C-alpha cells in the first residue's frame, strides 16, 4: 500500500527543511503527540524514523517535517507531490501523557525539533494547560513553524545563536529566567542531543534552580521500531538499558546518559558519508542524462 505525498513545501530559508503531508488514513486515525513513523522511500531505502508532527483524522493525513542531514532524508525531500512512498509504519512509540498540570509547561523546540513540539503543545493546551514556548535555531533561516507554534502557546520566546531573530543566545537562557521567576510543572525539550542535554542539566535540581520534571525526545538510529533489534538502545545514568522505540521516544531527561548517546549517534558516520556521495553522484548523472535527452 504505497503512501502518496499530497503536499510539500520548504520551511525556513535554509533549503534543507521540508514539510510533507502524506496520505496514511489508518495511521492518521491512531496518531497522537509523541508518536513517530518509520519510513522507507523505495526498495533499496533504509528505514528512518520521523515524528508525526501533525495529523488530520478526517482527511486521513499525517504531516512530517524533515531536515536533510544525509542520504535518506535527502532522498525523501527529493520526492514531490504525487510521488509514492513505499513503506510507512506506525504510529510507533508511546504517546505522551496528557493531563492538567497545576503550573505552566515550558515547551522547548530546537531546529527541526520544533515540529514534534507542535502536537505535544497542542494536546497539552487543549487539556487546559498554560504553555510557554521557547524556540531555538542557529539562525533566522532555520527557524520553522513560528506562526503555527504561536497558535498553541500562551507565550512564545525565540532565541537564535547569531541574534538574527529574537534573543541572541541559546534556549537555556530564557528557560533559566522563567524558572527563577515562576513555578513550572513540566519541561518538554525536543531538538539536537546537545540542546536536550543542557536543558536536562538546567532542570535536574543539582544546580541552584529547582528540579522540574523534564521530557526529552530521543532520536537514536532505529530499524524495526518495535523493540526487536536493540539498535535504538540508550544507557541511563545508572547503567540500565532502555529502548527508545518502545520505552520512548519521550523519556525522563534526567535519567539519560547523553554523553554515551552522543557517541552512539556517530557510529555509522563513515558509511553515511559514502552513501551520500554515491547518491549525489547518481543525482548528478541523472541531471546530466536529462540535459542530454532535452
Amino acid at each position, binding site marked *: *500500500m504505497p503512501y502518496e505525498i499530497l503536499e510539500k513545501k520548504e520551511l525556513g530559508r535554509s533549503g534543507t527543511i521540508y514539510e510533507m503531508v502524506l496520505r496514511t488514513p*489508518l*495511521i492518521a486515525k*491512531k496518531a497522537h503527540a509523541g508518536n513517530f513513523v518509520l519510513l*522507507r522511500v523505495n526498495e*533499496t*531505502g*533504509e*528505514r528512518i524514523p520521523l515524528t508525526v508532527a501533525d495529523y488530520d483524522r478526517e482527511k486521513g493525513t499525517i504531516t512530517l517535517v524533515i531536515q536533510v542531514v544525509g*542520504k*535518506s532524508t535527502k*532522498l525523501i525531500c527529493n520526492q514531490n507531490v504525487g510521488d509514492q512512498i*513505499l*513503506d*510507512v*509504519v*506506525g*504510529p*510507533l512509540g508511546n504517546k505522551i501523557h496528557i493531563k492538567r498540570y497545576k503550573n505552566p509547561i515550558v515547551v522547548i523546540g530546537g531546529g527541526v525539533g520544533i515540529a514534534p513540539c507542535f502536537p505535544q503543545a497542542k494536546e497539552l493546551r487543549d487539556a487546559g494547560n498554560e504553555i510557554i514556548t521557547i524556540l531555538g535555531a542557529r539562525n533566522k533561516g532555520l527557524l520553522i513553524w513560528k506562526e503555527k507554534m504561536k497558535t498553541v502557546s500562551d507565550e512564545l520566546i525565540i532565541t537564535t545563536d547569531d541574534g538574527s531573530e529574537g534573543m541572541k543566545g541559546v534556549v537555556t537562557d530564557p528557560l533559566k529566567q522563567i524558572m527563577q521567576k515562576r513555578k513550572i510543572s513540566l519541561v518538554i525539550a525536543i531538538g539536537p542531543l546537545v540542546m536536550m542535554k543542557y536543558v536536562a542539566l538546567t532542570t535536574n535540581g543539582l544546580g541552584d534552580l529547582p528540579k522540574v520534571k523534564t521530557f526529552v525526545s530521543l532520536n537514536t538510529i532505529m*530499524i*524495526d521500531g*518495535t*523493540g*526487536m*533489534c*536493540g*539498535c535504538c*538502545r*540508550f*544507557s541511563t545514568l545508572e*547503567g540500565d*538499558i532502555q529502548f527508545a522505540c*518502545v520505552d520512548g521516544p519521550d523519556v525522563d531527561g534526567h535519567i539519560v*546518559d547523553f554523553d*554515551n548517546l552522543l*557517541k*552512539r549517534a556517530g*557510529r*555509522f558516520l*563513515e*558509511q*553515511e558519508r*559514502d*552513501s551520500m556521495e*554515491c547518491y549525489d553522484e547518481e543525482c548528478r548523472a541523472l541531471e546530466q542524462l536529462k540535459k542530454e535527452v532535452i
Partner: protein
Amino acid sequence: MKKKIEEDSKSSNSLSKRSKSKLTNSEELHRIEMKQQDPKIRITNFEEVSLGLTEEMVELETQRCLQCGKPLCISGCPVNIKIPQFINLLKEKNFIEALYKIKADNLLPAICGRVCPQETQCEQACILNRQGEPIAIGYLERFIADWERKNNLKECPECAAPKGIKVAIIGAGPAGLTCAGELAMNGYDVTIFEAFHAGGGVLIYGIPEFRLPKDIIKREIETLEMLNVKMEYNSIIGKILTIEDLRDMGFKAIFIGVGAGLPILLKIPGLSLNSVLSANEFLTRSNLMKAFRFPKYDTPVKIGKIVTVIGGGNTALDSARTALRLGAEKVIIVYRRSEAEMPARKEEYHHALEEGIEFQFLTNPVRFIGDDNDNVSQMEVIKMKLGEPDESGRRRPVRIEGSEYLIDTDTIIIGIGTRANPILTKSIPELKLNKWGYIETDENGQTNIEGIFAGGDIVTGSATVITAMGAGKKAAHGIVKYLQEKYLEKK
C-alpha cells in the same frame, strides 16, 4: 549420458537388493553427501552453501530406505510427514506424487529441507541411525521442492469453495503462513497482517541468504496469494489496528503468530559501547535491509577486522558466518557450554568450522571494554566448567575463578536468545500469558479468549521452523472447528 545413468541404476539396483538382505555390509550404510561450495570461495559470497542433490544421488539414497513397516522417522517429524511413502515415490521417479505426499503435511518443504534440525528430529528417529547413518530425509525433501521450483510448477493445492468468513493472521512467520495456507485451502477468506515490509518472519530477517535463499520465501508467499490470501504489510497490530478493530472489520477468528523477537542482551558492563550489537540488529541489517549490498542499498553495517559472537545457537552461527562474508578477517564464537550442548544445527556447525570460524567453548563474557570514543576494543571472558544438570537437562556451566582473559575485538554480536515481544500482547490485557510473557493455549491452539488462537514461538518460546508450522496448522484446524460450530452448522 544415458549410459552413465544406466550404470548408476544398475549399481543402485544391486544396492537395493543388498539392503533388503538386511544391514550387514557397513559400506551400504553410508549416506550421500551433498555438494557444497568450496569454503574458501563461499566466504566471499552470499550464495547458498549447499548445492542440492542430483537425481542420481536421490536414486542411491532412496534405495537405502528400508521402507519400515512401523516407520520411526514419521514420529520424529513434528508434522508427521509420510516419509517412507514419499521416499518410495521418489524412488519410482514419481516426483509430482512425491511432492503432493509431502505437501499434504508440510506446505513449505523447500524451507524445512534446508533448515530443520533433522539430526534431532526425523533423522534421529530413523532406524538406520542405530546401526549406521540415517536416511538423508531433509536432503530428499529439499530435492523434491527444488525440482518443483526448477520446473516452475507452482503447485497450488486445491481449495474448498469460499465460505465467506474472514480470518485474520497476525505475523507472517512460518506459524502464520502455515495457518493462513490451511485456512485458505478450507475456503476461508484470510488476511495476514505483518509488521515488516516483507513476509517470512525469522526466515526473512534472521536466517541468511546463504542458508535459505530469500527467493524461496517469496515464492511461498506468492503461492499463498494464489490461494487468495491477502497480505497487509507495515501493519503492527496493537499499534495501527487493535484486536477490537479487527473484530469490527468482520474478522471472525484471529491467529496470533508474532514470534519471540525480543533480543536478550547481556547485562554486563560495556553494553552501551559502539559496535556491541544484538544478533537481531546485525542480521536484520544484513538480511532484511540487505546491508550486505551497501551502498546499493542504503542501510549500513559495520564490522571491523575481528568480530566476536556470543552464543551457541543458530543465531550465533548465522551472525558469525555473515560477519565473515562481510569481510571480517577473524571471527570468534564464545559459548559458555561445550561443543556437545550447542543447540545449533550440526550441519551449520560443520560448515562454520570449514569456513574457519574459531570456537572458544566453556567461555563466558564478563565485560566489554571500550576506547576513548566508546568504541569496543576488547572483551574480558572467564573460563567455565560443567556442573550439575539444570532445568533444561544440560549441565550448568560454572565459573572457574581467576581464569579471566582478554580477547581483542572490533565488534561484539550478542546472540544468546530471544524472548516474547509484548507489543501485541500488551494491547490485549485480558489475554492469558505465562510468567515469561508467552501466550497460553489449549491443545487446539485456542487462547483464553473466544475466537483468538495462537501458535509458534509466541507460545512455546524460541523453537524451530517446523514446530512453528506444526502449531500454525494445528491452530488452523482449531479455527476451522470453531468457525464451523459457530457459523456454519447453524445455517
